[in-house]
């Protein structure tokens, strides 16, 4: 199942920053992590990840850095900046409030079985 576009717009930057907050990742690594760790739900087309990264970079929430990969090649990693962390904290709080509010309406988060795809 894929998320509706509107949900995705809100969730995607949040997801990416959460992942990068744990540790720096390079592009392909991030794509794989998104797919794997969200059970495929936030596996936005890989083509969407790079625009999102450029966006976040433009906003100053992530910053690129170059490392040498084991293969000897130079690799571009992304890390979260201080601004990014601040924004992430804000978004998390909003997310918590949203969930709580919806919960009061009777919308509790139920565990959803991962659909086999």
């Amino acid at each position: 199942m894929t998320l509706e576009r509107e949900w995705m717009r809100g969730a995607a930057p949040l997801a990416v920053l959460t992942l990068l907050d744990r540790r720096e990742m390079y592009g392909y690594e991030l794509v794989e992590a998104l797919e794997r760790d969200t059970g495929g739900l936030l596996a936005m087309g890989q083509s969407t990840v790079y625009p999102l990264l450029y966006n976040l970079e433009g906003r100053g929430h992530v910053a690129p850095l170059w490392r040498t990969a084991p293969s000897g090649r130079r690799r571009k990693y992304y890390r979260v900046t201080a601004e990014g962390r601040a924004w992430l904290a804000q978004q998390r709080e909003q997310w918590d409030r949203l969930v709580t509010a919806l919960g009061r309406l009777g919308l509790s988060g139920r565990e959803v079985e991962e659909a086999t795809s």
Partner: protein
Amino acid sequence: MTRAARGTLPPEVESLVAEVLDAARLDLPARAEVEADLRAHFEDGLAAGVPSGEMRRRFGDPRAAGREIARARRSGDPGRNENDGRWWMSGNEWWTEVKRSVRRLARTPGFAAVVVATLALGVGANTAIFSVVNAVLLAPLPYPDAARLVQVHEAAASNRDNQNYLRGPTVAAYRTWSEVFDGFGALYVYRETGADLTDGDQPARVTATPVSAGYFEALGVAPALGRTFREEESVAPGTPPDGADRGTPISPVAVLSHGLWMDRYGGASDVVGRTIRLDDRPFEIVGVMPEGFVDPFGPRADLWTPQDLRMGGSNSWGNYYLSALARLKPGLTLEAAQERVDALYTRLVEEHPEAGTQWVPTLVPLRDDLVGSTRRTMLLILSVAAGLVLLTACVNLANLLVARGLGRDRDVAVRVALGSGRGRIVAGLLVETGLLALVGCAAGALLGAAGVRALLALSPDALPALTPPETGWAAFAFALAVTLVALVLSGLTPALRLSRTPPADALRSDGRATTGGRRVRRIRDGLAIVQVAAALVLVTGAALLGRSFAELARVPLAIEPEGVLTFEVNLPASRYPDGAARDAFHRTFRERVEALPEVEAVGAVSWLPVNGRFNIWGMYWDPSFDTPEPDRSNRDGWRSTDIRVFSGDYLGALDIRVLRGVEPSEADMNGEPVVWVSARLAAEVFGEADPVGKQVYVANEIRRIAGVVEDVPYDAEGGIAPKTYVPHAQFADDRNWALTQTVKARGDLAAVRERIRATLAGIDGQLVLHRPKPLEEVVASARAQSRFATVLMAAFALLALALSMVGTYGVLAGAVAGRTREFGIRMALGADRASVRAMILRYAAALILPGVVLGLVGAWIGGRWVQALLFEVDPRDPLVYLAAVAVFVAVGVLAGWAPARRATRVDPARTLSSE
């Protein structure tokens, strides 16, 4: 795991990457970066063992990806952004651009000031001139269907340009020619007739014009109150009493002008029917003309009285004194009307042979008559001159903007690299240009309005206008349009050019001043040459007019106007009823004024010199006339002469010499009638023989010639007409001559004038010293038109010269700035400073000389038109051309000097080390 080398992705992945990049349409640096990211992504994936087909599938739509990437790259905000390659801008973006432009201009106030000033001068000059031209030449006369109005002259049959006044009997006939004329009005405008208006407390001097019945109707204007003159108030049966003033109305009624009605009577609605006193005679007000009505022959008329058109008295076949206008029947062309008039006149002569065939009725469109052909030519030439000034101003503007555009090469290149669309860049540059244009044109409008006022102040005599020139919006719009076109073109060129250049090239130039390439340089050179040519034409024109004016000023006038005060004293008929009373006044007045300490001579004359021809009468003499019983039967004995009635020491006051015979002071005025003749008349009539003592018939009597007086011109160009001087004491009964007093005095004329005023009051407290003017002013106004044209042309020429000098300097300075490397290298290789300087000066010559040649050609062609304004000067005078060329050689040297010096100051060592 194989290491995927750059450029060795599987073909389907390569093509995917290519598709993404194509869709993104990024500039080079961004493209390189994104490409690297994508390659790394796919390499990582392939290295992880994902098949290329799967990689492709997982990636998604490459085109969508490309667009998203593009949007995201250019700003962190995926929504709004300013550099997304769009052509158009939203309202908000326009406002942002305006603010940016203002900030940019504020950083370079010098540039902005020069642009605004240049624009203001060009627009202002053209607006002012065009306003005048519009009011004088183009705007329709302020009467309904004014194109049908003509002035009627009696002109010489042999030469219709030789125009005369009309006679009473012919006017009477013309008024009946209803197949040609829809309306006909005659007036006595021989001179502005002044009258003393006394009613109520304050006497005032007013201008009264006698007009016939039908005058206002011919113009097509109805009175605002009451009525105009009835037929019987102009043409009643019976003949006018002999000896009556030609201006005496046959019916004591008057029509007021709107101005007089408001000023003096406060716009009272019951003014019709009131009685006023003009020159002590009662008149009944019968009507008031509407606001805005202007009498074409007497724009300053305060009121009108009826003109007597009864046969007899002044209205005889030999007395030419009336003017007339008429309205042609609808649909009748001027040529057709003239033909019919000619036919009708032939019939008239058959019925009345005394009408004669020497002077025949001639029709001239009223506007042409009022403007005059010389004035028309002058205004057209000045319009062209103003246009040339605008041209030089526009060239300078174009150069300034191109230079500024070049200076912003890097700025624009960066914006293009960041993805700004061409439209956006163009719009940005246009906003800046537009702001400058707005301010500049506003300043130009103000300058133009001031210019119109200045033109009128400079020489009101040079510009007659029934509709006073206001700052014409048509003129302003015209100048604005032309300038905007020039601005847009010159502001646009760098924008279009730059937006096509690959940004990398512009960025690579590393901040060294760019000259913009050969094409731009050639355009700038071309513009500088055009400027020089335009300026040269103007300078030549100004020089010619200046010389012409100088020649005019040198014309010997045979009078000494310095220190001579002129004024009029009107003698109302009620208290000075006959010639004896008037002459007695003149004698008493002269004696008292002569007694004043500063006064050297006092006299009076019927018409001042250098003021046009006037009172052209007949004089008779033939060899048989020196007999005791002369008869005037020989038709060839009649000649025309300008009569001047004089009293006192008129000749002495103006320093007019008596060449032969006796001075007027020595002659016995109580004896036989005498007369003085001018040298021209003496030569024409008597040849080598001495005219003194001979008898002639002139001024209604046989008179003896008492002396010969030197010729005095009747116009500023030295025109001489045969003159006859008749003493007032012997001719005062003919009419109230309304002599103009001439007093020669030492010291301050204003003070003298007040003392004379006091003296006058001592003789008769009700008399008014009217229109005092130094004779020098009278003479100056005769040269008014020439002076007007000269001053204006000189101003334009100076302006154009300054502008072209600045323009040439700008081009040279720019060229030097762009070639500093070259000069440095040359000097390092051994060229001496002199040769570098010579290079620059040669460049200057390459700009000036072609411009000079072009300008000379233009001046040669234009000479034909300027000729009409020139006096005693050949429009192709080689000396003037040589002088103009010399001026521009000097300009070239001056403009090139500083840049040349700067070129030689380049430090070769520093230039080489920066390589």
